[in-house]
């Protein structure tokens, strides 16, 4: 039973459409949760070229300051601090929910709200971080908010610092799953799906290049699970 469930999950958004195809937007999100009771979390391990590249650049140095925009987890804290780095955690999506409501009940383009959000989530000195684990949080930001967040990231990450971000490769999704990412080792992530959420924007390679145009370089890894892993060099 369990292997079938896992197979069907893998055939979901990260592994292509399930058998029979998906007729309309939104069905994909529902298909992902087929056979999954409320509150149940299924975690899968996946190798990550982006993570490998991210740590290749920072693992030989200790004492770095790394910002994690995901949920603070024991695995990530232990892994990063065991490498001798200092970790800063800012539960980005939780702060986003607290500020704008679960379904963006408050307009994300409101300048006052954007300032408030940035103060809550990314109020750090200039050049404070050597690296940032962005994970998949940027997909849920409306254009004005996204621009403000990237501007702030550009300020708080030191030049030549690295960032790791994930984006769904399928640009026809209405709902995308959001995950808790737990670092298992330098090349492997444990990915636990926590629910699904309407993305504010979906990106292709070209739009991602444009999005990070202010940064020095952008490198893509398109995985078989239809997830783009992006390494951004500040």
């Amino acid at each position, binding site marked *: 039973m369990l292997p079938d469930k896992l197979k069907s999950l893998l055939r979901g958004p990260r592994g292509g459409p399930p058998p029979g195809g998906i007729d309309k937007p939104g069905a994909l999100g529902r298909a992902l949760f087929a056979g999954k009771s409320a509150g149940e979390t299924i975690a899968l391990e996946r190798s990550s070229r982006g993570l490998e590249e991210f740590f290749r650049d920072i693992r030989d140095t200790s004492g770095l*300051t790394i910002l994690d925009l995901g949920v603070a987890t*024991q695995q990530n804290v232990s892994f990063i601090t065991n490498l001798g780095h200092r*970790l*800063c955690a800012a*539960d980005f999506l939780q702060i986003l929910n607290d500020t704008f409501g679960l379904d963006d009940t408050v307009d994300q383009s409101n300048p006052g709200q954007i300032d408030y959000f940035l103060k809550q989530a990314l109020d750090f000195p200039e050049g404070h971080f050597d690296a940032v684990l962005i994970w998949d949080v940027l997909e849920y930001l409306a254009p004005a908010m996204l621009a403000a967040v990237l501007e702030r990231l550009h300020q708080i990450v030191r030049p030549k610092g690295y960032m790791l971000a994930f984006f769904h490769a399928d640009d026809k999704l209405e709902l995308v799953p959001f995950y*808790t990412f737990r670092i298992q080792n330098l090349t492997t992530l444990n990915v636990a799906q926590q629910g699904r959420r309407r993305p504010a924007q979906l990106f292709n390679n070209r739009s991602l290049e444009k999005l990070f145009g202010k940064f020095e370089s952008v490198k893509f890894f398109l995985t078989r699970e239809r997830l783009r892993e992006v390494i951004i060099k500040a």
Partner: protein
Amino acid sequence: MWNKRRDEEPPKPYAPPPSPAPVAPSPIQPKKEITPVSSMPMGKFEPQSPAGSASIGKAVKVVGQIYSKEDLYVDGEIEGTVEALEHKLTIGPNGVVHAGVKAREVVALGTIQGNVEAHDKLEIRKDARLVGDIRTARIIIEDGAYFKGSIDIVKPEPAKAAAKPLQAAAAPVSAAPAPPAVAHASAGGPEIKR
């Protein structure tokens, strides 16, 4: 609690509470009064039993500085600072601490807003909320906990840890400015300064 309205009574030897459960509000004082707290000599709060644990109940709010020489359980609200340098500090599920916290071991089940130094270990349990910077030797974060801030893992320094309580005990009452105390409670171990 915390010797409220006992100024006129002769000092009594400390008797530990029968159970470590949070202290309920006294029936004599159904309404929480805001009264100024006076600084008490350290010795008066010396626990008789080293195994005893002090607790601050969920109906108690403390504004000021707390120095504890025994394990401390906080299920109420604290604004200021909390130090239990050689002991365990537990923030209960109803506990709300807007304070800098220093202890040998900190277990958070409630809310902490402030920097935390736990020389030995810090546990952030499920549904706990911690916003602040952490310095500790070990950290445990349960799934479902919320944390925002930085984490510095520091090697424990036993020599320093042993010396610090003495410094804290010798520190003058007016060493650090603190907000005026509006209410206080005591279970024997902690000392509250204002």
